[in-house]
C-alpha cells in the first residue's frame, strides 16, 4: 500500500461531510454553530463557505425542534439531513424525536417510510467538562430498536463510517469521542465506505479477547502492546458499529481465546458492556474459561475535578489489572 497522508479525526469527518454534500444536493447540515463557526469542535469547518447558508444551517437552541425537523425532512423524501447534537449529554431534550419518532416511523408505518437522517454527536470524559458534558450514553441508543449506532475509534474508520452512515437509508447515531478529535492517522484522500456492522480486529491475539469502544480501543491497545512483551497475547476488537453488531467476529474470538474483557467508558448497568457479557454467556458459554470481566465507569455521574475524573474513567491500569485477573 502506498503511504497515505495523516490527518486528524476531525478532519477525516470533515472530508466525509464535504464529499457527501458535493455529491448529493439533498444532504444538508444543521445544528448549533455548524455554520461560520464550523462547529465547536471544528468538524463542519468550511462547509458553509462551500455550500451556502441554505444547506448549512445554524439553529437556535431547540434540539427537539431541529432534530424533529430533520426527521420530517428525511421522512418527506426531500432531504438527507446530517444534524449535530452538540453533546450527547443533551439527548434528553430531544430524545423523543430520536427514539419514538425517527427510530419507529418505518416500523409503525409498515415499512413504508425511509428516514435517512444522521445525528452526529459528541461523547466522552477527559476534558473536565463535568456531569452534563462528559457522558458516554451510547447504551441509550442501542437499547431502543430502530437506530443504527456508530462509534469509531480512528480517523480512517471515522471517514469511511460517516460516508456509509449518510448513504444509509435508516437513522444513524454517529458518536464522536471528544478526546479523539485531535488524534492523527492515515486516511486516503478519495472517498471510501466501511459497511455498518463490521467489527475490526485492531490487534490479533490468542489468550484473551478484549472488546473496546472509541477512546477505550486506544487504551486497550496500549495495554495489549505492553502485555505482548510479557508474552501475553491479547486480541482487541473494535465493533465500530454497535447497532448492527458484528456478533460473529466477537463470538469467534471468544471461542478462540476462552476469555473476555469488555472495556467501555460508560455507566455500568444495562450497558454495552453487559450486552457483550450476556452475548458471551449465552452463545459462547462452553468456550468460557474464566468469568467475563467488564471495565466500565462506576455508577456515578462524571465528576468535574481532574483528580476525580481520572479515577472515574477506565484507565490503562484498570484494564491491565482486569486482563491479568482473567488469565
Amino acid at each position, binding site marked *: 500500500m502506498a503511504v497515505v497522508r495523516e490527518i486528524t479525526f476531525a478532519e477525516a469527518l470533515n472530508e466525509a461531510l464535504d464529499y457527501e454534500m458535493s455529491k448529493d444536493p439533498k444532504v*444538508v447540515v444543521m445544528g448549533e454553530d455548524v455554520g461560520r463557526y464550523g462547529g465547536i469542535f471544528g468538524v463542519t469547518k468550511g462547509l458553509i463557505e462551500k455550500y451556502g447558508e441554505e444547506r448549512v444551517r445554524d439553529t437556535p437552541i431547540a434540539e427537539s425542534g431541529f432534530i424533529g*425537523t430533520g426527521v*420530517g425532512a428525511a421522512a418527506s423524501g426531500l432531504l438527507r439531513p446530517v444534524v449535530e447534537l452538540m453533546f450527547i449529554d443533551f439527548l434528553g431534550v430531544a430524545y423523543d424525536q430520536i427514539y419514538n419518532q425517527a427510530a419507529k416511523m418505518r416500523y409503525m408505518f409498515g415499512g413504508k417510510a425511509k428516514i435517512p437522517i444522521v445525528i452526529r454527536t459528541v461523547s466522552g470524559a477527559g476534558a473536565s467538562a463535568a456531569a452534563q458534558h462528559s457522558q458516554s450514553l451510547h447504551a441509550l441508543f442501542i437499547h431502543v430498536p430502530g437506530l443504527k449506532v456508530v462509534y469509531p475509534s480512528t480517523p480512517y474508520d471515522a471517514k469511511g463510517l460517516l460516508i456509509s452512515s449518510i448513504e444509509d437509508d435508516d437513522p444513524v447515531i454517529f458518536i464522536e469521542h471528544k478526546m479523539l478529535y485531535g488524534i492523527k492517522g492515515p486516511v486516503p484522500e478519495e472517498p471510501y465506505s466501511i459497511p455498518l*456492522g463490521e467489527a475490526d480486529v485492531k490487534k490479533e491475539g490468542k489468550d484473551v479477547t478484549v472488546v473496546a469502544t472509541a477512546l477505550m480501543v486506544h487504551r486497550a491497545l496500549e495495554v495489549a502492546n505492553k502485555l505482548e512483551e510479557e508474552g501475553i497475547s491479547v486480541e482487541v476488537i473494535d465493533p465500530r458499529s454497535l447497532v448492527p*453488531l458484528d456478533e460473529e467476529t466477537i463470538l469467534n474470538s471468544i471461542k478462540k481465546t476462552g476469555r473476555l474483557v469488555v472495556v467501555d467508558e460508560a455507566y455500568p448497568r444495562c450497558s454495552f458492556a453487559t450486552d457483550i457479557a450476556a452475548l458471551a454467556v449465552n452463545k459462547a458459554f462452553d468456550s468460557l474459561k474464566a468469568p467475563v470481566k467488564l471495565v466500565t465507569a462506576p455508577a456515578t455521574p462524571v465528576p468535574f475535578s481532574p483528580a476525580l475524573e481520572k479515577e472515574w474513567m477506565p484507565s490503562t491500569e484498570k484494564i491491565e489489572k482486569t486482563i491479568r485477573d482473567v488469565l
Partner: protein
Amino acid sequence: MAEIPKEKLLWMYETMVKIREHEERVAELFAQGKIPGFVHLYIGEEAVATGVMAHLRKEDFITSTHRGHGHFIAKGGNIKASMAELFGKATGICKGKGGSMHIADLDVGELGANGIVGGGIPHAVGAALGIKLNGLDNVAVAFFGDGASNQQNFHEAINLAAIWKLPVVFVCENNLYQISLPYSKQQAIKSVAERAAAYGIPGVSVDGQDVFAVYEVAKEAIERARNGEGPTLIEAKTYRFRGHFEGDPQIYRSKEEVEWWKKNKDPIVLFEKTVLEKGLLTKEELDTIRERVKREIEESIKFAEESPWPKPKEVLEDVFSTPTKGVLVWQW
C-alpha cells in the same frame, strides 16, 4: 362563499360526511370489540380538516395527531387500508403494525398520526424545509390540539419555521379540552392564536365549526406559505362531540354542554343549512353523497373484516430499510 366552486362544495360535504360516518362506525366497531387499543374520534371537528385540506394538493404534506382519522380522510388517504389497519389486519396501511395512532399514507403526503402529543409539529417544519430547499411551491400543514400548544415542540418548531420563513401552516384544533383539562386552565390567554406574536408570525382565530370560515382563513395562510411569505398560526375553535377516547366517562364536562354544541354547532348541519338556504346545493345532491359515502365506509369495513391477520414472523420485519448484519432478535 359564493366564489367557492360547486365541485369544491361537493367535495367539502363529502369529506365531512365521510369523516362523520367513518368515526360513527368506528365507535360501534370499537364497542363491539372489533377494533382494539386506543381510539380518539374526530366527530364534531370535521370542518377544520376539511376547510384546510380544501386548499391542499396531493404533493403537499400534513402531519397529524392521535386524533387523526379526519386529517387522513380529508387528505385523501386510502380508507380501505386504514380501516384494515384499525382492525390490526395484514392488509392495513401499516400492515397492522401502527393502529389508529400511527396511521400514515406517505403516498398522499400524510406523514403520520402521532402518539406523542406535539410530536408531529417539527415534522411538518422538516417537510417545509425540504420543499424550500428543493425549490418547490408546495406547503406543509401541522395539525395539533390545544393541549399540544403547551408542549415543547410547538415552541421550538414554530420558532424555526418563523426565522427560516418556511412554507408551513400551523393549525391548532382548540377543542377546549386536553382530555379532562379545560382550555381555560391550560393557558392564561384567550386564544392560542395570541401565541403567534411570540414568533413574529400572523396568528388568527377562527370558528372551527364553520367550514367556510376555516376555508377563508386557511386559504390566506396557505397562499402566504406558497408565496414564500412564511408560516401562519391558525387557531380553530372547535369541540369534540365524543369523549377524549372511546370509553371516556367524561366526568369533566356536563351533558348539557355537549348537547349544546351538538345542537347548535354541528359543522355538517351548519353546512347543509347554508348551502340549502343559499341554493348552492340541492337536498338530492347531499343525499346522493351521503349514500355513496356510507357504501364506501361499509365496503372498507367488509374489507377489514375479511382480511387476514398478520403472521407472527412479521413482527421482525420493517425495522430497518437497508439489510443489516447482526441481529434483530437477540436470539437467546
